[in-house]
């Protein structure tokens, strides 16, 4: 594939249309390119530091298609290795997580330390290896970058990546806001939710910041919440969930293109004092000030950190990340994240609101997944080639709006409507830029060889 085989698939005509060719969701060659140049070619979210609290704590996961071990070192540093023995390539570390000073490959017993250095070759003296064999590098292959920002661990397999801080760009403001819920920082709660669906991974990156679908796809959720509140008011019973409500007619809302593919969506929450952090609103305001408290507790924020993480802070608080498995297969990891030291009543509220909405066992997420799968089915209708993201085009604001200015961020594009689709232009411009740059680089490499 050449850059020009991709560029025609994104038609970007400001003021007229922004449309994408649906093959980007179905084409296996494009999926391979995405794995190579997006997932294995740049910064990827790995996990939260909650899961690696001590030195020599490790997790195993994948970056793109590549199996990796991520391990915590001294002084809050992290390093990572391709999880393949230098001998025959067997996965050295088979556990999902653990703590160890050494990893012994279960196949032929080679031993590595957590710096990835080969420490022991079984029966080395008797090995009759060729001359110079032992002097060769038999260490685990090191991942170029593993780094954390406020406990959010990212890694890149590309030695030419920009710094993590540069990659995060304007999302850093929102990560800090998220992290500041407690002066003690955040902790991921125990209890995982892993689910799969038959849709392309880019629908995860779209839908988590899509305001347009909310009242349609989640009609059963919002109607149920309203029924529950009404019934409880009538009987003076205890509503054990207190779901959050949204009201687009009478509140402020919008979304931003933050650059580097990162985008975010926000809206005011009418009953924000029913939120876990809202229950302590006055104390929060005293600690962080009026403006910051409003953004942190009274304003829903859903921030896509491209390409594989969304911070959700609204219905409850969730970290959702995903692993693309194939063009039409995605595996999602969702966890609840909460401020450390949270009062019991607020913690329970957060948990009940989380379970109600999120996860494939909740009463909202399965409806999203059903729509992704339905889109994937629709994309097989090859005669219907194109779709646009034109909603909001004539009212999108270039640069920051007054809400962005009040928190000191400079989005490339600001939308004053929750349901506008102009933020996707940022996602797909970045997507195209990364893939075409990758293809150009591949062409040079092939030319040279």
């Amino acid at each position, binding site marked *: 594939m050449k850059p020009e085989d991709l560029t025609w698939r994104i038609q970007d005509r400001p003021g007229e249309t922004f449309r994408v060719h649906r093959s980007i969701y179905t084409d296996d060659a494009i999926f391979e390119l995405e794995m190579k140049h997006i997932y294995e070619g740049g910064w990827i979210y790995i996990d939260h530091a909650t899961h690696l609290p001590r030195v020599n704590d490790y997790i195993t996961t994948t970056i793109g298609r590549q199996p990796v071990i991520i391990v915590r070192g001294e002084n809050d540093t992290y390093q990572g290795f391709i999880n393949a023995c230098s001998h025959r390539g067997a996965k050295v570390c088979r*556990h*999902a*997580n653990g703590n160890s000073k050494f990893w012994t490959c279960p196949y032929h017993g080679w031993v590595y330390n957590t710096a990835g250095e080969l420490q022991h070759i079984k029966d080395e003296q008797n090995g009759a290896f060729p001359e110079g064999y032992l002097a060769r590098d038999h260490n685990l292959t090191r991942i170029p970058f593993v780094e954390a920002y406020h406990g959010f661990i990212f890694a890149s397999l590309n030695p030419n990546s920009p710094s993590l801080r540069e990659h995060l760009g304007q999302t850093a403001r929102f990560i800090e806001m998220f992290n500041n819920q407690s002066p003690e920082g955040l902790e991921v*709660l*125990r*209890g*995982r*939710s*892993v*689910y*799969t*669906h*038959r849709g392309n991974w880019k629908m995860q990156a779209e839908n988590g910041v899509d305001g347009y679908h909310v009242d349609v*796809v989640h*009609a*059963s959720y919002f*109607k*149920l919440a309203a*029924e*529950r509140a009404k019934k409880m008011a009538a009987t003076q019973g205890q509503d*054990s969930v207190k779901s959050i409500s949204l009201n687009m007619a009478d509140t402020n809302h919008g979304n931003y293109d933050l650059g580097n593919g990162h985008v975010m969506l926000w809206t005011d929450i009418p009953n924000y004092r029913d939120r876990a952090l809202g229950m302590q609103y006055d104390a929060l305001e005293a600690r962080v000030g009026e403006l910051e408290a409003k953004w942190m507790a009274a304003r829903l924020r859903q921030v896509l950190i491209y390409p594989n993480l969304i911070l959700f802070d609204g219905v409850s608080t969730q970290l959702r990340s995903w692993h693309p498995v194939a063009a039409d297969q995605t*595996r999602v990891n969702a*966890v*609840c994240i909460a401020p450390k030291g949270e009062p*019991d009543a607020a*913690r*329970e509220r957060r*948990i*009940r609101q*989380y*379970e109600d909405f999120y*996860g*494939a*066992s909740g*009463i909202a997420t*399965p*409806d999203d*997944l*059903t*729509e992704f*799968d*339905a889109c994937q*089915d629709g994309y097989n209708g090859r005669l219907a080639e194109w779709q646009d993201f034109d909603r909001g085009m004539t009212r999108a604001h270039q640069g920051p709006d007054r809400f962005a200015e009040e928190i000191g961020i400079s989005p490339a594009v600001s939308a004053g409507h929750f349901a506008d689709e102009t933020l996707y232009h940022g996602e797909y411009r970045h997507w195209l830029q990364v893939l075409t740059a990758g293809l150009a680089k591949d062409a040079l490499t092939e030319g040279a060889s």
Partner: protein
Amino acid sequence: MTDDGRALREAVIELLLEEADAIDQRRWDDWLELYEEDAVYYAPAWEGDDDLTNDPHREISLIYCGNRQRLADRVWRIRSNLSSSLARMPRTCHLVTNIRVATSHRENVSVTANFHTNTFKHEEKESTAFFGRYQYQLKRNGEKLTIREKKIIVYNDIIPRQMDIFNI
């Protein structure tokens, strides 16, 4: 086994099979009737291979309903016609086996069982299954048994699109 023990065992088996049938046949009101009003329905989430969460007030559960009304909420949603994931209700078939009365003391009866729930999804044109273990706390009131607590430990917790009260 005493006559009373045998009668209890029969009643327990009947209750568990009635619950499975009520769900599979979508007799939702009959299903809800099996639960006490303050019954707890609890499907804990896993944290690791052998690490199951056990505190629904501090940890995330797959499903936690602290009373029957929360179960009724899920039934309401199934009946609402507002959810696209439920627009074509999957066919389900619960196989409930290995039923044992663990302890029985006055009105409190503790029961364990295994389950294998097959789900046929119309959109996917394929079948999936969840399997695992049930732990019941039942209330015995004369001849009648009701559910005080049902804990559902799902062994295969990677969820294809949807898990709800009808397919575990």
